[in-house]
């Protein structure tokens, strides 16, 4: 197998947070169909989808309810069968109310009759596969939710030679990708090959962290040959970050401000590869996903298959509820996830985990003065100096922060995790980036 011959490299920086993979050996269960879903129109990066249903319309599982609102956008499908109640402003993980399609279920879980599996997915031509992927509403399922078909359409003059399938799952607590790799390794491999066909690449690398050797074994078994390799990577956060992954596997560095395609690489999550298989081979759009409901604040942690649009409160309820001392609920992992305050927010295409943390797991110490210890510089996987751009941001000198390359920050959280002075370095970086982008927009008029 090709995997034995692949050399891996080290990326600089990174941290080793406790893994806390509480749910890694719990098999996935499918949560019963919720009686009501709120499917947001903005579940991806780019323009929100445009609704194409009206109140009173009957929908089945997989009925398209909103079309892409532009090239960088993705359609949205109904995740249950029932009746459209309306297009309402509904709480969104972004923190404000955004339009969502409210669907009341009829409990029958009826699927779209026209949906028939395709017997020979690999015989389709690349253009057809891409169109199926676009129509199925696929977005990056690692959390960034960038529309998949856009990533699979590199511009002319940007040849791609390698497709990396990201199964690193380096965030503590999360095990959704791990369980998926165990449950459907053959689907992931076929999905990867389908994407490889679109990109015209022969070399596909499926990368998994060494703490999931059972997944590595399952994937290796599923790989039939060709140039697809399964690689076990060192356990280090953020091993699953795109740029770090490329460095670790290919020893290529994505230039500042650039994209993986600048070094001839496309990276897709294992969840996306599985969704590609489901869309192309089984003709099923993206209406559900694997999600870890975990953390010390959840009574019965679990790995679940969740329908898109299920309110988080219902999921928590299904898992036995929250413990008394829960202090923070996060969508995603503890390092990069977004804290939510309103649990009625729906599960979205990018929701890889629902994490409830209690006080002892949180750092709520007051910010102190910077000690110039250099820990943030040591652990930054992008080779930045977080203390410098943070200080300039605190002083409102955003142009100086920009000179310290704050725009290259990937917001992985290593620096804030290590900072002994508890300085909210990532928040400052996000703040500086938002301000600099606003200024750029203003300068452009």
């Amino acid at each position, binding site marked *: 197998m090709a995997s034995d011959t692949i050399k891996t490299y080290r990326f600089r920086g990174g941290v080793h947070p406790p893994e806390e993979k509480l749910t890694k050996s719990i098999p996935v269960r499918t949560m019963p169909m919720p009686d009501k879903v709120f499917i947001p129109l903005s579940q991806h990066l780019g323009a929100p989808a445009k609704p194409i249903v009206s109140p009173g319309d009957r929908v089945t599982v997989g009925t398209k309810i909103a079309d892409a609102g532009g090239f960088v956008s993705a359609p949205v499908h109904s995740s249950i069968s029932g009746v459209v109640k309306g297009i309402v402003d509904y709480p969104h993980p*972004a*923190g*404000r109310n955004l339009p969502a399609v409210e669907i009341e279920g009829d409990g029958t879980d009826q699927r779209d009759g026209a949906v028939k599996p395709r017997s020979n997915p690999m015989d389709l031509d690349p253009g057809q596969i891409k169109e199926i992927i676009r129509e199925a509403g696929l977005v990056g399922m690692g959390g960034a939710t960038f529309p998949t078909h856009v990533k699979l359409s590199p511009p002319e003059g940007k040849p791609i030679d390698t497709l990396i399938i990201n199964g690193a799952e380096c965030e503590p607590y999360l095990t959704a990708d791990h369980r998926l790799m165990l449950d459907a390794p053959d689907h992931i491999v076929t999905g990867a090959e389908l994407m490889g066909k679109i990109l015209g690449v022969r070399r596909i690398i499926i990368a998994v962290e060494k703490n999931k050797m059972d997944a590595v074994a399952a994937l290796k078994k599923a790989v039939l040959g060709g140039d697809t390799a399964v690689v076990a990577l060192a356990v280090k956060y953020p091993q699953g970050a795109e740029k770090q992954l490329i460095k670790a596997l290919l020893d290529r560095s994505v230039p500042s401000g650039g994209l993986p395609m600048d070094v001839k690489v496309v990276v897709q999550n294992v969840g996306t590869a599985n969704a590609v298989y489901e869309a192309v081979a089984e003709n099923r759009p993206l209406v559900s996903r694997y999600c870890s409901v975990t953390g010390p604040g959840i009574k019965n942690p679990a790995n679940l298959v969740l329908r898109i649009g299920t309110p988080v409160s219902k999921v928590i309820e299904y898992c036995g509820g929250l413990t008394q001392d829960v202090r923070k609920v996060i969508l995603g992992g503890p390092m990069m996830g977004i804290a939510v*305050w309103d649990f009625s927010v729906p599960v979205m295409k990018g929701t890889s985990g629902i994490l409830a943390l209690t006080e002892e797991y949180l750092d709520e110490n007051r910010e102190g003065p910077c000690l110039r210890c250099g820990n943030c510089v040591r652990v930054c996987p992008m080779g930045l100096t977080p203390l410098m751009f943070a200080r300039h941001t605190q002083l*409102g000198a955003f142009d100086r922060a920009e000179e310290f390359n704050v725009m290259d920050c990937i917001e992985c959280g290593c620096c804030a995790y290590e900072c002994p002075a508890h300085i*909210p370095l990532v*928040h400052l970086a*996000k*703040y500086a980036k938002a301000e600099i982008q606003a200024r750029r927009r203003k300068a452009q008029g």
Partner: protein
Amino acid sequence: MFESIIVLAGLGLLSALGLGIASRAFHVDTDQRIQTIAGLLPGANCGACGFPGCNGLANAIVSGNGKIEACSAVSDENRKEIARLMGMEAAETVKRVAVIHCNFPAGGVGNKFEYLGVTDCRAANLVAGGPKQCVYACIGLGTCKSVCPFDAVTMGDSGLPVIDPEKCVACGKCVEACPKKIIDLVPVSRMVQVLCSSRDKGARVKKVCSVGCINCMLCERVCPFEAIHVIDNIARIDYEKCRVCGLCLRECPTGTIANLRGWEVVAEIGESCNGCTLCARACPVDTISGTAKERHIVDPERCIGCGICVDQCKRDAVTLVKKTAAVRKAAAAGE
């Protein structure tokens, strides 16, 4: 001893000669007016004029690229002095001040969550639009205070910033910095203001705030000048049309509209009144009394100074005067 004096004096003379020659050879002509004008400008280097600091504007004024009016902070006296130096007319500028269109009382708007991040409104706004229940409300972390170059902003007891109209020069720094965009520069003569920015529907506003605009439309209906309109679920005042009568303020059920001016005007009817009763009929608050064909009287205590009577009077008998003076006069007449 003697030698060292000679040597040092010689060295001194030599360097003086060198400097003297250099100052002639490398002389740069500068317009003396630049220094003088820079001295007359406020010197806060706020940048609101669009030039790099006060020196930059002084340069621009002298070279003809900048206008004196670009500086909103310079005093009237200095503006005239600069105009005199430059031999041009200084246009009259309307004095404006910053007004914060949010007025929740202490503890008036609850928090959605506990915010532990960076102490800056712009940073807090990135986290779900800030911790306040009302997404349009002032976050209250004092970014406007920290960017104000004139120390005109202080943080009040209720957690809202307070702007000192005496110190505010309408440079617009806070307007730009506020992530909620609830600060506005308002002409000082238009200080009847809607102190709410919520574009939520009335029911939602009522849930989170006791003084928010619930778009009941009463102000729009009562305004005699069509100066106030509810657009996007929030009452907005057209400063061109507003006559600062304060009728809307009296109607507003939630007390969202406030009178921020320090003085009030009232109508006064002069001797040329022939008792035509037009003013009495037009008065929206019934403060004008008198019998027909006799001079009418305004009750200065109840008059709101809307000026409708002034427009109605065909004989120019009604004028608006500052309230204090009118009350004094009325009191003197009563004696």
